[in-house]
């Protein structure tokens, strides 16, 4: 049974030095109420696994300006100049993965898989330092799976057990991140009664979800 908490309580679960997964593709499907609250808190030295780090001054971008992100693992940081600048100044370490490799590594982490071989990136700059393996005559790169201390995800509706459904393209990284962290907090539009979501439509079964937070007013 997921516990219902507010954004302040959600953020209080995050400790200095934690590794966070944060859902979203840009700001779409990002748990902005919790991320906004996080920017009001003091947790620092964070590692953040997320496709992007928000936009300048928005979403996770705020944490970057506050110099509270130690390392970011994602696929596309170019669209936020603050991230690029922080990286150039040596304030922010960046680990860049092809988007499909990032998504797969998170899924693998949640599914108890230690790592996998992807053909993506073979022979490119992003293959540097990675173990290579020939499988059936084709070359692949080893990629270890990813896990986090806390996942902050965004869903559309939850029932009181914590079962989740998503809305349109805001699904993106959220269902995998729900599986891959020790503590999973889902920000949702609405919490409905158990039984209101059908067994066939549930995308994230409740066994993955620890806490629910209802989306609030969110200045952006």
């Amino acid at each position, binding site marked *: 049974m997921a516990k219902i908490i507010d954004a302040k309580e959600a953020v209080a679960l995050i400790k200095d030095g934690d590794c966070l997964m944060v859902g979203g593709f840009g700001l779409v499907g990002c748990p902005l109420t919790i991320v906004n609250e996080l920017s009001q808190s003091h947790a620092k030295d964070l590692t953040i696994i997320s496709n992007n780090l928000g936009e300048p001054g928005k979403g996770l971008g705020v944490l970057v300006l506050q110099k509270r992100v130690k390392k970011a693992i994602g696929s596309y940081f170019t669209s936020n100049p603050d991230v690029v600048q922080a990286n150039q100044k040596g304030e922010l370490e960046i680990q860049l993965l092809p988007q499909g490799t990032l998504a797969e590594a998170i899924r693998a982490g949640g599914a108890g898989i230690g790592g996998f071989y992807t053909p993506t990136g073979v022979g490119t700059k992003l293959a540097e330092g990675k173990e290579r393996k020939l499988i059936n005559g084709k070359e692949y790169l080893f990629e270890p799976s990813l896990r986090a201390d806390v996942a902050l995800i965004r869903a559309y509706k939850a029932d009181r057990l914590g079962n989740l459904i998503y809305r349109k393209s805001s699904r993106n990284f959220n269902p995998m991140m729900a*599986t891959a962290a020790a503590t999973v907090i889902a920000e949702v539009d609405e919490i409905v009664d158990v039984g209101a979501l059908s067994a066939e439509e549930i995308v994230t079964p409740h*066994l993955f979800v620890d806490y629910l937070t209802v989306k609030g007013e969110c200045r952006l």
Partner: protein
Amino acid sequence: MKAKEYIAARTAKELQDGDVVNLGIGIPTLVVDYLPRDVRVFVHSENGILGVGPSPGPEHADADLVNAGKLPVTVEEGSSFFDSAASFGMIRGGHVDVTILGTLEINQRGQIANWAVPGKAVLGVGGAMDLLEGAGKVIVATMHTNKDGQPKIVKETSLELTSLRPVDLIVTELAVFCVRDGRLRLIELAPHSTLEEVRQKTGAEFDIEWRENMETKGV
């Protein structure tokens, strides 16, 4: 109460409210019938169900709704269906709190052999290895001896191990053992069971570490 029912009832006491539990076939399936009213668990079935409910009457059986033992089941409110890759992701990924399994043999270090049938080619494993690997807690619920009256708990198993991981708890009609640091520890006797009988029907060494309620019983 018959032996199997006793084992199921005793095992039920190990479950906590809110646990996600995967049940093997046989005695483990009976465990949920003995849960106290204030303990609700969520039964996971590795063929793709979270929220398995009681068996339906034959007239309500749905051919598309079976558990991992291929028996008709029902589902409770808040249940969900998913594919086998997702289901075993839950198991390996540590999202199932407890699994309750039967076994053929248990060795002195608490490792079990519950997949390879004696004297037969090894042609079936199912989800046993995944459950041993990934479940938060593994409880074996089994008769103390096999059909021939021979101990199931032995120094070394004659059959292939299911996993290198020792189980956490063993519940039989005679006793309860926990496994810690690679050793079996007898923590409880069943009513009407004696230490002598347990010694006689157990083929492995074990320590004795009575739990508090046993000590007060003056064993």
